[in-house]
């Protein structure tokens, strides 16, 4: 499945692994923080509307 990368296989694969890991971490961290902040905001809005 993996193409013949010759003597540079480690170089190419490590560049791809590092980049994809960093991009994945950025997307996951952004989504997790976004969900947490949204849930917190909704909780505060509900509490404030209950208390008038």
């Amino acid at each position: 499945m993996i193409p013949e990368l010759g003597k540079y296989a480690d170089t190419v694969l490590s560049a791809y692994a590092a980049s994809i890991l960093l991009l994945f971490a950025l997307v996951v961290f952004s989504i997790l923080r976004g969900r947490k902040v949204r849930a917190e905001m909704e909780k505060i809005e509900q509490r404030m509307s209950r208390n008038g």
Partner: protein
Amino acid sequence: MTIAAKANALWEYANPRKFLATSERVLPFFWITSAALLVVGLTWGFFFTPDDYKQGSTVKIIYLHVPAALMAINCWLMMLATSLVWLVRRHHVSALAARAAAPIGIVMTLIALATGAIWGQPMWGTWWAWDPRLTSFLILFLFYLGYVALWEAIEDPDTAADLTSVLCLVGSVFAILSRYAVNFWNQGLHQGASVMRAGAVTGTDTQEKVSNIYFYPLLLCIVGFVLLFIALVLYRTGTEIRARRINALLARERVNG
């Protein structure tokens, strides 16, 4: 609609509610299209392009290195534009968009530096050289870190937005320098522009350019990175708007007892 009317319509997005409603509507398009383009572009580049006659299989790093480097620079330029909007028109959404973009810029710069070092080792015989482009990129990375640290260090959000906007103006010199450094100084190891050069794309100049075999999958990856950047900025700006609202609600709650 005239150009002036269109420009005025743009300011509607300075309203946080309008921004959130619009971004939530368009976000699925940007997430899905960017993911599709990146999967197709990277698969095409990694599996279905030949080795370069000089660089062997390391040429496949181009599909990550070039788009990340482009976005590292353009992210700062986007932050410059939104910081200027904040300084001139005091729209909070623009300051929050700049804040939301900075961590994306950090990751893009880090990918460009890391893939550049990994690529440079077998090609140049060294992981790092104090070359004009590499050095200006490292300084840009430090500016990104400083920008994020400044936002975190200042409690008052308007003061933080003011100071980070000024830092952004100063850092823009290095963002532009990291793009054009190779044109000013010839002594560096890093090659000149061979992809996003008008003459290279149209074939009207005689300098070395990237072959079309590599260029088409690279173009998909570049567009994929741009769309991913837009998706992340929209999503993260929404998060910053909500975080700001939380602070406002809590302050109101404290005042009301």
